[in-house]
């Protein structure tokens, strides 16, 4: 293989030697376009893998009697996300032209391109199809974030209706304000890979869902918190590692080309922030709580990742460590706080994605000299106001029409049996003897 790799390297040089100069430049440009596009497709694969990470994390941090239900939701969401993004999402998020002062734009239903969409004429980093599929992978993550927060008590059908409307319409609509070139983009708001556009948007919906659903049975009794332990911390840890793995594409792909300097910098800031998030959470849980809690450290890694997502390409390496560490500390206090106010979030989605999404977005204004804190704050508030309201309205309508929550008896029995009439572990029992 060494030989063929070498000959590949030599090939452009040979072309350069024999061909006239303009053609050589063209060949080089084509090669760069291919490299860029290939990296964007690899990044797409990595973001796709995050859905398995989310699934594992959610399954691991919840009870075994709800495992089928959780997997069913996660499997459905990827389908809902990709299909709705093809039907309306992509053209709603990237409309090209805006009306209503950069607030709304829609380029029509469906996707498609002519030959120009397949060359560097469309973009130097990717083809039209790559653009679509990379962004579509992002879209589904916003609803997946909600899934964990409302787990173990929401009706399957109600959740799927919510996910469809939220991913299909709300996510791309608010996304267009920044990434689509809308009013927040004009204002100078910065969100590199979606601390706000993806994570906070999902987090706000989680707040609305958790509030309208109420806590799981037996979680808060007589003013006391009764924890409901997740059934597989190994799965939760595997989920964290998969999410981190996927984040190389989530942030690395958000460079929107294979730009060597930027992509490698983003890899470094992303990993250091995740590591600092772990350390921040570790120190916090070990000092504030009686024992060092693994689930908190797992949340800490994700907190660091969410935190760095807004500014991974515009902050220094030291800044990324600070952003991650603060996120790691924040997430532990946030989990404790959310529990205190009796918002039952089994996986800590609100703390990881909303609290740290807000922190990461504001951190761009603090650490990057090119961006304004006030503009970042305006963005955070605008997204908060709209996403929370939209999620609240959608969930309320579902609650009033089809109901949001399963019956008490069904919740006790577990959603696997009540919603699906099947079990995740029908022939598997952990033996405690050897």
């Amino acid at each position, binding site marked *: 293989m060494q030989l063929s790799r070498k000959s590949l390297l030599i090939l452009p040089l040979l072309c350069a030697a024999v061909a006239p100069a303009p053609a050589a430049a063209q060949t080089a440009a084509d090669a760069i376009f291919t490299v860029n596009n290939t990296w964007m497709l690899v990044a797409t694969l990595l973001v796709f893998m995050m859905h398995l990470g989310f699934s594992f994390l959610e399954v691991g941090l919840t009870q075994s009697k709800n495992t089928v239900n959780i997997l069913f939701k996660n499997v459905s969401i990827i389908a809902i996300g990709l299909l709705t993004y093809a039907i309306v999402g992509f053209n709603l998020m990237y409309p090209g032209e805006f009306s209503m002062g950069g607030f709304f734009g829609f380029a029509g239903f469906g996707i498609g391109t002519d030959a120009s969409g397949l060359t560097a004429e469309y973009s130097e980093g990717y083809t039209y199809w790559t653009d679509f599929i990379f962004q579509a992978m992002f879209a589904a993550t916003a609803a997946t974030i909600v899934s964990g927060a409302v787990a173990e008590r929401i009706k399957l059908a109600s959740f799927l209706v919510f996910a469809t409307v939220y991913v299909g319409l709300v996510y791309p609509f608010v996304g267009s304000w920044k990434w689509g070139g809308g009013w927040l983009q004009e204002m100078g708001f910065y969100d590199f890979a979606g601390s706000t556009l993806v994570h906070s948007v999902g987090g706000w919906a989680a707040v609305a869902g958790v509030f309208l659903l109420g806590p799981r049975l037996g979680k808060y009794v007589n003013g006391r918190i009764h*924890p409901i332990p997740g059934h597989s911390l190994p799965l939760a840890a595997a989920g964290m590692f998969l999410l981190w793995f996927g984040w190389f594409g989530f942030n690395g792909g958000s460079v929107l080309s294979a730009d060597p300097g930027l992509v490698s910098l983003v890899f470094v800031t992303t990993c250091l922030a995740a590591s600092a998030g772990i350390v921040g959470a570790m120190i916090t849980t070990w000092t504030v709580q009686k024992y060092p809690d693994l689930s908190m450290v797992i949340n800490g890694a994700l907190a660091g990742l969410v935190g760095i997502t807004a500014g991974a390409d515009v902050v220094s390496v030291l800044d990324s460590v600070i952003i991650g560490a603060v996120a790691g500390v924040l997430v532990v206090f946030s989990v404790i706080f959310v529990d205190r106010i009796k918002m039952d979030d089994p996986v800590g989605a609100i703390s990881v994605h909303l609290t740290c999404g807000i922190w990461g977005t504001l951190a761009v204004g603090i650490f990057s000299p090119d961006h304004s804190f006030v503009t970042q704050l305006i963005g955070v508030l605008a997204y908060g106001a709209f996403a929370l309201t939209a999620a609240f309205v959608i969930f309320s309508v579902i609650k009033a029409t089809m109901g949001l929550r399963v019956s008490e008896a069904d919740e006790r029995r577990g959603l696997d049996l009540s919603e699906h009439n099947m079990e995740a572990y029908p022939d598997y029992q952990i*033996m405690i003897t050897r």
Partner: protein
Amino acid sequence: MKLVIAYIQPAAFHDVKQALTEVGVGRMSVANAQGVGQQGGYTETYRGAELEIVLRKKVRLEIAVNDDYVERTREAIIEGARTGNFGDGVIFVVELAECYRIRTGESGSPAVG
């Protein structure tokens, strides 16, 4: 014929099995069990909140023996399971009215073996 029922610490199972084998008791039924005795429950923590665990994990042994094997079975279980702390477990010995071996059709003492 007697049925010896013992609840022991899961961690003691290996030693109990060893001790039983040494005195010639090689047949047993084993099940996971949960229970609470003098030792009481305990607390775990999960995401910063305390979790009261009333029932501890135990292993339940059931061994059917002929009368002349009762003592050595009992002593072997005690030898393997005893640490001197609360929670070492309990042994119940009850009369066994009947016993049938399904494969051979034997009954009574020969069926116990």
